[in-house]
């Protein structure tokens, strides 16, 4: 199977802290890859390095077969990668619609961007209803929808999702996971970071477990489910 993301011996450092140590990670085309691990395992650091906003200290990141290790974030977005980041990070003092407009700058021309915006507001009706409202006034679940919709504005082939279910009510978690499966069905490849390992393994085609910045295990979800390595990776924090 062809890989949309291929990470080789990646290191991420914050001064003396080695957050990610020589990890290898492959995301195959048109599937969901779960990236699991305890708090501080290095999941977000990995994701931010892929998005190009945290520098990699060593290693190689190749996206759609192109070397993107030192590429600027805008080049990475134009190559077809988008992110729904940890903590959602919607622009609270801008309106819902403005949040989407900003994400459309990668669309090329204004007409395409407007069409995509309209389509996304149909897909997420709550965003359409609240388009003129400040995004900071949305509920947590609605903000997560906006974060996903914003990522979809660039029509990505590869979507990074960092803890999309964090802090949401069970009903909203179901809704978000429903969306994740829809996106997969549309052929978008997804790298899904989750604290909720059980839920992530249910939708994933492939899983990687990080512990203390290194890969502790990887394989098919059915093999990892109930695996001791997964348990110990979560307890070892």
């Amino acid at each position, binding site marked *: 199977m062809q890989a949309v993301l291929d990470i080789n011996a990646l290191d991420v450092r914050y001064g003396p802290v080695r957050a990610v140590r020589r990890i290898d990670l492959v995301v195959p085309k048109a599937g969901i890859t779960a990236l699991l691990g305890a708090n501080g395992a290095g999941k977000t650091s990995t994701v931010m390095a892929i998005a190009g906003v945290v520098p990699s200290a060593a290693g190689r990141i190749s996206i759609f077969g192109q070397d993107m290790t030192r590429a600027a974030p805008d080049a990475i977005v134009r190559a077809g990668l988008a992110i729904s980041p940890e903590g*959602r990070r919607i622009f609270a003092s801008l309106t819902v619609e403005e949040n989407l407009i900003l994400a459309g*700058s*990668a669309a090329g021309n204004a007409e395409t961007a407007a069409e995509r915006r309209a389509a996304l507001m149909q897909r997420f009706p709550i965003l359409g209803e609240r388009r003129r409202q400040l995004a900071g006034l949305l509920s*947590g679940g609605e903000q997560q929808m906006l974060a996903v919709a914003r990522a979809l504005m660039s029509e990505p082939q590869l979507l990074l999702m960092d803890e999309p279910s964090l802090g949401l009510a069970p009903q909203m978690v179901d809704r978000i996971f429903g969306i994740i499966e829809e996106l997969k069905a549309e052929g978008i490849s997804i790298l899904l970071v989750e604290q909720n390992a059980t839920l992530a393994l249910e939708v994933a085609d492939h899983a990687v477990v990080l512990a203390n910045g290194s890969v502790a295990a990887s394989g098919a979800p059915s093999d990892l489910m109930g695996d001791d390595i997964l348990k110990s990776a979560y307890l070892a924090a």
Partner: protein
Amino acid sequence: MELLLQQIVNALSLGGIYAMLALGLAIVFSIVRLINFAHGELMTFGGYGIFLSMTFGFPPFAALVIGIGAALFMALAMERVTFRAMRGADVVSLLIASFAVSEILKVLFQNGISARPVPISFPSSWSGSYQIAGMTIGVVPTASILVTFASLGTLTFVLRRTAMGMAMRAAAEDFEMLRMLGVKANRVVAVSFAISGILAGIAAVIWTAQRGSVDPLMGFFPVLKAFISTVLGGLGSLGGAVLGGFVVGALEVLTQAFLPDRLAPYRDAIVLSAVIAALLIRPDGLLPAKTGARS
């Protein structure tokens, strides 16, 4: 009555200069976290732009436009040459770098042109005045106020209604996120510097039109007041910077006009005490920057 109206005009025109300078500082700070100590030299450079173009025979209005262009050019040059390479550095390193830029430019002005004030002679009609309901008001202060409000209005429009303005508001909130959406960082930063340069240039125009001379420290003292204004208004808040500028300008004019001569040497101390008192009551400033979302 006439005195009061004149003082209101003075307060608005001085406050307007502080407001524009403070706004320039706040826009750059909100996006790159740089407290630009060299902001005053943008204004001074604009002043020398006016002086030199008049010396080379340009008509006064053209010279004013050239002055604004000079400040704009210098702002972009500063960003490109010094601050772009330091993107993401901590606030203190950036502040120290801007000190260095400020000192270098001051020395260049002193040695390249003159350490002393050089006169700019605008047409005598500019120093005239007109009558409203029997009260005498200066032409230049009135024009200053109009220019200030037109500039602030235009900037508000740009920030609220244009795509670039939207990107700048988003950058102030979370620049990294904006970059992850594919927006080019350099462009947003360059535009923020450009806006701060244009505002400093307009301040230079008003300042020189009122005072008729330029010296190497021309921008230094007003920018000091503008720093105080940004802190008073709330660091990082654009509305706060403008409000702070007008408040500091008004305090200065009022103390100058109504303080007994005996207390005149304490004018700045009195203004600063008022600012400190305001900050004791509202530590985040008069109009604090909006922060964060509902979590």
